């Protein structure tokens, strides 16, 4: 598979999933993500996989977790209302260290909101949505080709870290049709052994192997607090403390290598736009235009949305002024403020269900430059 195709972002996700070895998909119909489900329904039976239309989003992700323990790489796709329902099961996947990929094609909320309009309002939910203390990985894409690539990467990270990985798209990228190169990418396979009796962290070797059901391990997998053998240990403060620390640290400990980004013209910039997903395309157009006009403006585009790597942010952004451009009320800006200090963070936020325009970004950037005096 090495082809240039004209396809939609949602189809590219399905293509990436199949390339990454996804052989189980469960989903529930919801706009604007349904095309991913349609593609998987068509394709999976042709490659020895299984498709399941669940009775709701809770069941969809639950079936993916079950299939993952049965030895199948699994994915579900949804949008905001379904993503909210999945939070219970995301916590379960975190606690049981189950690799699974969840694609959230963002639409304008809250609640039913605007089913067909793009938004980036699920960022903090992707990062914080389930109860208790945990970390997971959140990726994004600003193009059809990147949707393909980041889907493959989502599966690889899920296998390496044994945790759920969320791919946050938005309606605009999901429904965008453009030229994309679907090139073969490295694929991480499930580590199924050895059968040594320790199948959950923390282990001295890092992430434990995950033998599938039916392999003779006779595993116990529980969402209750458990020791590395899987035994329920709900009264032991040491086990709880070590488990919770492990679930977070196995992700945060890899934050530098997980953090993928692109940057343009940052070195000599006085103002750096920070933007992700479809918003970053508007920001890039504005940044190019401003540079042509001689304004010292750069662009920083995180592709990994969580975990962010503060060391990388500090190194790339230095002490420059930052204008965060996003289609929510400042959710990535909230995290950047916490990491870089709120004084230098400005925001351009749009929550009217429209893709942010390059003109508005340029206007806000000029105002920010003037504001500096």
């Amino acid at each position, binding site marked *: 598979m090495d082809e240039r195709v004209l396809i939609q972002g949602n189809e590219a996700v399905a293509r990436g999933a199949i390339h990454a070895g996804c052989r*189980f998909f*469960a989903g529930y119909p919801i706009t604007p993500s349904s095309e991913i489900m349609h593609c998987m329904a068509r394709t999976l039976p042709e490659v020895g996989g299984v498709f399941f239309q669940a009775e709701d989003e809770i069941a969809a992700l639950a*079936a993916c977790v*079950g299939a993952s*323990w049965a030895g199948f790489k699994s994915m579900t796709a949804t949008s905001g209302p379904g993503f909210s329902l999945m939070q219970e099961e995301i916590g*379960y996947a975190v606690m049981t260290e189950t690799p699974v990929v969840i694609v959230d094609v963002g639409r304008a909320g809250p609640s039913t909101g605007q089913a067909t309009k793009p938004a980036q309002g699920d960022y903090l939910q992707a990062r914080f949505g389930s109860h208790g203390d945990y970390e997971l990985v959140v990726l994004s894409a600003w193009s059809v080709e990147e949707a393909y690539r980041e889907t493959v990467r989502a599966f690889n990270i899920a296998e390496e870290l044994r945790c759920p990985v969320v791919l946050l798209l938005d309606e605009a990228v999901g429904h965008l049709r453009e030229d994309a190169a679907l090139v073969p990418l490295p694929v991480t396979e499930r580590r199924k052994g050895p059968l040594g009796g320790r199948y959950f962290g923390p282990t001295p070797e890092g992430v434990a192997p995950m033998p599938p059901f039916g392999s003779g391990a006779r595993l*116990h997998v529980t969402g209750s607090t458990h020791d590395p053998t899987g035994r329920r240990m709900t009264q032991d403060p040491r086990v709880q403390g070590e488990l919770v620390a492990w679930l977070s640290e196995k992700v945060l400990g890899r934050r530098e290598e997980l953090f993928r980004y692109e940057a343009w013209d940052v070195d000599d910039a006085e103002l750096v736009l920070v933007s992700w997903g479809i918003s970053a395309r508007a920001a890039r157009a504005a940044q190019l235009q401003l540079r042509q006009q001689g304004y010292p403006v750069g662009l920083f585009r995180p592709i990994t949305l969580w975990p962010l790597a503060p060391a990388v942010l500090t190194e790339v952004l230095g002490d420059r002024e930052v204008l965060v451009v996003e289609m929510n009320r400042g959710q990535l800006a909230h995290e950047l403020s916490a990491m870089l200090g709120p004084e230098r963070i400005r925001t351009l936020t749009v929550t009217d269900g429209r893709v942010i325009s390059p003109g508005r970004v340029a206007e806000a950037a000029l105002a920010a430059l003037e504001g500096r005096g």
Partner: protein
Amino acid sequence: MRAKGWRELIREDFWPPPFCPGCGHGILMGAIMRAIVQTGLDPSRVALVAGIGCAGWIPTYIACDTLHTPHGRAIPHAAGIALTRPDLRVIVIGGDGDLSSIGGNHLIHAARRDLPLTVLCANNAIYGMTGGQTSPTTPPGERTATAPRGVGERPFDLCALVAGAGAGFVARGTVVRPQALEGLLGKALGHPGFSFVEVLTPCPTQVGRRKGLSPVDHLRTLGERTVPLARWRTLPSEERAARIPVGILRGGDEEGSWT
């Protein structure tokens, strides 16, 4: 390889189970182990899936692959296993609250889809673990922690519910007659599609104590209220209303109404 005896199915590292004295879940657990042995299943090819609640702890103590999931969600997890791995026999175990309240939608859809699952519902008609709240199967008039003046709603007949949703095998047994129960479980495990066994069992802690029933009297009452289906059909209608038919209700030799 098939197990030689039920002792092989004890997960010794995790033993003993935490059930209250007088609880029926241990009897059900033993019946499940013996049914697995008697049907000749390889324990390494059996997946037991449970949700939350006292009955959800049963698989924890059985040496198969076991998945202990969030409250109500055992069935969709089991679906993910059963759909991808037809070589595994997948058994779901849960209580009445877990399977028919928070998980009720999953239950009827699994029956409708005819998923290859055996679902065992330990029905004690109460939320035991959380402190004796009303469940969807609590009989009208019973006093519970959340109905201190008596339950005013109608209960589910779980067997009729799943049969209405299309289940191909439906049975009801009790922990009072463990050998008959074991036979029902064996038949359910032999059914290729969706099978459902309602297992009537006492909760001595949250129901027995409230009613002043000793664990023995509680079991005795349950035994007296339940009647094999063939005999139940011969009873006069007023007596039928007071008794609960047990046995294979659908998918066995005797088809027909039990409600």
